[in-house]
């Protein structure tokens, strides 16, 4: 008997699809070699739902060799044949091949985006003997029963070939850039040092690294500039309020003092009082970038973690497809049904029912995505207890959805201008008149009310306590995963699906470190090398052009072959430049590796002999970490200092304020990083261990 073979992207999705489509209850679950598949029937015809497990096929070079480049010939091959950690995928391909033998209809039911289309396509083409021309495509945004059933009964008649072509091209171009440039770098480093180094650069890594390097240079070159600000209190009706000087930063001490002398204890005149009432619209619904930024701001989740959690909620049919770039909620998602579903959940029933009683018009953002709407809750109850992390993210998504349908909040800002001779001060107040959407989005939004006394124009008030405070302009802040993701989005570097992974890759490679992202010496080495040799690799223009090309392929205005030829000709030129200067580039990269190592272990110059460097060393005999002088080997210095044996220790490159010895930063789990002076006799440690 023949059947329809449904290919889902993940096992959980296959289970959901099979359950949604089966006419009578739960479908029969089968498993072979740990690979699950489901057999059921719909409207009298049998179906088998199986799944992929991510990409089962990948691009690989036709010939092997670690350092061989350029490599321009490639094939699509099973991933398990080229990646050591993908061996388990062999069983998946074999079982899909088996299941395909008796199927007469094929449906790609992977997530509806470029990656999903490509995953399904490669299985239909390479594992099932190229049945792509007779395959259909399911298109859905949630794994809810109704939407899945509708999408199965009304599939797209063919695969989305233009999307697949764009996806294939992206993989192939990225592979060409990645393998050739990375091999060229590794070969150069090997030529110069005779040592193997894992180095990589790619079309997206390059511009991201460059942006990080520019920020790091600004921070490292930064010299703080002093300024003065005024702190001022006034008394009105027996209560003390603070007022602000018109200019936030006063450039010189003399000027600040002149204002203090002129106004302190004097009477000021209220010469203007103005109040402005305004409405603030609700925030737009979440696209993936917005969700990642908000989850980082509120819970500190890294972007990749947020996507992974959202993916789990999607597979549970609790939210819609999360990898979307849209901030639109079309009426076709069924606002009323979703809100009624949420109304059935104790936590959200009051708000959902209140919103249901009004007009259902969402406040949408400007971003669009042709494949999916913005992220929204399905309104389905959860079948299992969500983990704390999942629940937090789900709650955030639900409350944002409710906020989107809520009324604007009504606020009032009041400002009074107070003059004292030639100097102008102001006092500001803020009130929330109606909470509106803020009530739906609690506790994820807050606005502190600032009380302001009733002032009238012509009223006189006395400046009680006016003083000048010296401050410094601060360096630009470091990027964190969320702000870096935002930058990548603004500059169109990478795609919504890959940005979070790129940040992880840069961390893994040792180019960047820490949550407040810091560029390492190795990262600088790579950027410096390419800035000198081939700036195009670091340029956002190159990656923007490719994104544009992908769009043109999707619109069938450009072909995959044209894009590949352009990439190859660019790489030929670049690789030729690298090859002619291989030794010099290698020497620079090797030096960068050495510096990166020193950056990790070198604390400072030795305060004892002044010629050696203090290094963090692990004793071979005891396994303990301590600080020793690099001149110890030559017998000229025996300086050493103990270090804590737990946590991560890094040189701080700062000196102790008390004794002038170098300090290190100690990081331990569940505690803030702290600075430790390496001098065991430092006066700052005198009180250590003593009871007060």
């Amino acid at each position, binding site marked *: 008997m023949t059947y329809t073979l449904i290919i889902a992207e993940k096992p959980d999705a296959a289970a959901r699809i099979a359950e949604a489509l089966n006419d009578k209850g739960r479908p029969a679950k089968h498993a072979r070699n740990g690979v699950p598949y489901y057999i059921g029937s719909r409207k009298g015809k049998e179906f088998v739902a199986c799944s992929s497990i991510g990409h089962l096929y990948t691009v690989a070079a036709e010939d092997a060799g670690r350092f061989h480049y350029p490599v321009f010939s490639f094939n699509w091959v099973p991933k398990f044949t080229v990646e050591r950690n993908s061996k388990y995928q062999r069983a998946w391909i074999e079982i899909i091949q088996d299941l395909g033998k008796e199927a007469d209809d094929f449906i790609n039911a992977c997530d509806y985006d470029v990656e999903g289309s490509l995953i399904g396509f490669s299985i239909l083409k390479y594992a099932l003997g190229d049945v792509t021309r007779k395959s259909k495509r399911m298109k859905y945004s949630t794994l809810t029963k109704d939407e899945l059933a509708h999408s199965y009964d009304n599939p797209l008649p063919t695969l989305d070939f233009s999307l697949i072509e764009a996806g294939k091209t992206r993989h192939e171009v990225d592979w060409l850039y990645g393998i050739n440039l990375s091999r060229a770098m590794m070969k150069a480093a090997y030529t110069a040092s005779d040592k193997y180094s894992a180095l990589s650069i790619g079309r997206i890594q390059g511009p991201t690294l460059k942006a990080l390097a520019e920020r790091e*240079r*600004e*921070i*490292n*070159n*930064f*010299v*703080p*500039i*002093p*300024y003065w600000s005024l702190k001022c209190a006034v008394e009105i009706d027996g209560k003390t309020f603070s007022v602000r000087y018109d200019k936030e930063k006063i*450039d*010189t*001490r003399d000027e600040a003092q002149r204002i203090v002398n002129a106004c302190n204890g004097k009477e000021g005149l209220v010469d203007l009082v103005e109040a402005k009432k305004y409405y603030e619209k609700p925030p737009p619904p979440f696209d993936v970038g917005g969700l990642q930024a908000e989850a980082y701001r509120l819970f500190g989740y890294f972007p990749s973690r947020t996507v992974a959690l959202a993916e789990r909620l999607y597979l549970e049919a609790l939210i819609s497809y999360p990898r979307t770039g849209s901030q639109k909620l079309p009426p076709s998602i069924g606002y009323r049904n979703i809100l009624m579903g949420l109304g059935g959940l104790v936590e959200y029933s009051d708000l959902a029912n209140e919103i249901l009683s009004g007009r259902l018009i969402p406040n949408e953002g400007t971003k669009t995505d042709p494949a999916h709407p913005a992220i929204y809750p399905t309104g389905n109850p959860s079948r299992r207890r969500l983990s704390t992390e999942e629940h937090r993210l789900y709650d955030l998504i639900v409350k944002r959805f409710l906020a989107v349908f809520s009324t604007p909040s009504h606020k009032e800002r009041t400002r009074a201008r107070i003059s004292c001779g030639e100097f102008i001060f102001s006092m500001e107040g803020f009130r929330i008149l109606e909470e509106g959407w803020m009530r739906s989005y609690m506790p994820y939004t807050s606005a502190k009310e600032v009380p302001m006394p009733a002032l009238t124009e012509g009223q006189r008030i006395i400046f009680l306590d006016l003083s000048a405070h010296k401050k*410094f*302009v*601060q*360096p630009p802040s470091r990027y964190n995963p969320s702000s870096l993701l935002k930058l990548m989005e603004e500059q169109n570097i990478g795609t919504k699906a890959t940005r979070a992974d790129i940040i992880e890759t840069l961390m893994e490679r040792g180019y960047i470190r820490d949550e407040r992202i810091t560029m390492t010496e190795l990262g600088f080495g790579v950027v410096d090398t390419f800035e000198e040799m081939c700036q195009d690799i670091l340029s956002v223009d190159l990656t923007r052009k490719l994104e544009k090309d992908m769009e043109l392929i999707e619109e069938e205005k450009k072909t995959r072959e044209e894009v590949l030829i352009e990439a190859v000709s660019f790489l030929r030129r670049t690789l030729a430049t690298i090859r002619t200067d291989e030794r010099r580039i290698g020497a620079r990269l090797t030096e960068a590796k050495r510096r990166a190592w020193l950056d990790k272990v070198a604390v400072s110059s030795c305060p004892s002999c002044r010629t050696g460097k203090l290094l963090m060393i692990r004793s071979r005999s005891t396994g303990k970490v301590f600080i020793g002088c690099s001149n110890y080997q030559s017998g000229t210095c025996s300086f050493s200092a103990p270090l804590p044996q737990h946590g991560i220790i890094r040189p701080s*490159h700062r000196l102790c304020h008390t004794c002038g010895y170098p300090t290190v930063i100690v990081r331990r789990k569940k505690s803030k990083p702290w600075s430790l002076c390496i001098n065991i006799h430092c006066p700052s440690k005198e009180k250590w261990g003593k009871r007060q």
Partner: protein
Amino acid sequence: MCVVCGTNDETEYCKRHQSAYENLVKTYDIWQRATELSWDEYLGKVIENEFTGFWAMEVAQRLKTKKG
């Protein structure tokens, strides 16, 4: 060779320390207008300041030691 980090360069400072040096010189004018400090006092203040960047700090330390 860079006098701060020993990088093989033909100039007194390597590229990164040169730009830190230029920044130190440029910012001194602003400091001087604000607080009338001598160059040496300025370097001391910059070294003590928690917001000073690492490369600027290295150059300031080098300049201060050289003078001392």
